């Protein structure tokens, strides 16, 4: 998949979607940082793998707790939903 930098309009759209207003004079600096991160990330090896567990050791000795957030991949998968769901709930 090609990783071309988003256009200025696309960045503005992304900012608006996240309700992140920014001074137009600052947009250029923001775009430069964003594009540098994008270029760096695009240079990462094209490999796939599971994220390691959050805890360096298992936490199975805590059965009293309702949740065991020891899976980083589970956490990351849940993260965007938390944010999107929040706004979805508010719109209802």
């Amino acid at each position, binding site marked *: 998949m090609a990783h071309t930098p988003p256009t200025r309009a696309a960045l503005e759209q992304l900012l608006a979607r996240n309700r992140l207003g920014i001074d137009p004079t600052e947009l250029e600096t923001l775009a430069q940082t964003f594009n540098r*991160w*994008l270029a760096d*990330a*695009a240079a*990462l090896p094209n490999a796939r*793998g599971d994220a390691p567990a959050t805890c360096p050791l298992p936490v199975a000795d805590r059965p009293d707790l309702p949740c065991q957030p*020891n899976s980083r991949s589970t956490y990351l998968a849940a*993260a965007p939903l938390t944010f999107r769901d929040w706004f979805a709930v508010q719109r209802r």
Partner: protein
Amino acid sequence: MPSPNLTAPLTTLAQALHTGALTAHELTEATLQQIQATQPYEAYLYVNRAPALAWAQQCDATRARGAMTGCLAGLPIALKDNLVTQEMPTTCGSRLLAGYQAPYDATVVTRLRDAGAVLVGKTALDEFAMGSTSQSCATSAPKNPWDAARVPGGSSGGSAIAVATGAAAAALGSDTGGSVRQPAAFCGVVGLKPTYGRLSRFGLVAFASSFDQVGILSRYVADVEPVLLALAGPDPCDTTTHAAPVFSPSPSFPLHLADCRIGVLPEAWLQGVEPELQQTLERTREELAAHGATCVPVTLPPPREALTAYQALSAVEAMSNLARYDGLRYGCAKALTQPFDARVSQTRAEFGNEAKCRLLWGSFLLTDPAGHELLCRARAVWRQVHDAYRTLLAEVTLVLLPVTPSVAFPRLDTPPDTLANADLFTVGASLAGLPAISVPRGLNAQGLPLAVQLVGRTFDEATLLRVAQHVEQPCHWSERSAAELL
């Protein structure tokens, strides 16, 4: 009574308090005066004057009665302003949380109080701990105490300045990708990031939960021990804390360097490191070898890949964690009569540009198909770095590497590459969840602090601190001439 030596080791101050040579009230009063005197460096966002003096008096009274006191009783300690406290406001260096007063104390704050520490104030940081310079703090522009034209590092810059200048005996910070170790290196103090799970994160305002860890800054390696002992241990409020055996204090833990194998990275891996920092690393290796340690050549995944992966993963987690700043749950509630969307927009407009940029990057990675593919690559690198460190540390006792590619850089007109590389050598231990320490190694010809980093095995802070004691060369800020001070 002569004024106390505020740059004395924590253990010396504790001994003076114990014998009655010094009272907690005198020490606290002297520290508060030093905070005032060093105010131009802008280390503190909030000074807890009256409660700190009252607490110190209480410590003195307890001691006078002959009752038991905690191991940190009467010692003035500063907190990074992303650790919530009931007694003081918590702003995270953001306009968004101006005047926010938490309804509870972070677990580490409670444990400091239980140990008798006097909490003297909250220190400056990059907004929501996102940054490596402390310059993205909305209400302060912290300066490096060795050269005010340079950054103190970040994001725990205020804590590092406070400790370096004697405006606190020790301080707590938080380290997500190097935010304790890097400012410690720039300010000439010790900075420990414990193993992920060693200290509770309950009450630490979240940035990237998979990597966030409370850290300790002090002037001497030996000063870390009593603070770590007071804070370590499982916490029912943080399921990622672990009941691993708590770190053993020094008398019961003799360590012979001859038993240690130190991993040393090749020159190619250290590409871009300033020559004087490479020389510092080489001298450290030679000293360790002279003490009997076996130094073995090792390698790790490229630091550039680790840094890129960290930037992506931390942005994604920040995107989730900072969603709570919507003007309803957290954040200024200026526009309560407005529709929800307008209220959120108005609240989030208060984020600084550094935070906005990271949130935007996280949003792109989570919502754009191309971004998602990049996120998958970042996760693969995370696994690779994590596994590489674990495999390596089965063979060696610890790894010696730089903290940063450069010494403290100028506050203004910093080249983007210098800023981008500030965390190049610290993110590896963060991705692997391992303990790591930044150790001062004296000053360069310009009078700026030099440092090296040691990364140890999971929950083996004890060995890390013992070896660090062998290589530390403390920087004495108080010995600078009056002309050099702000």
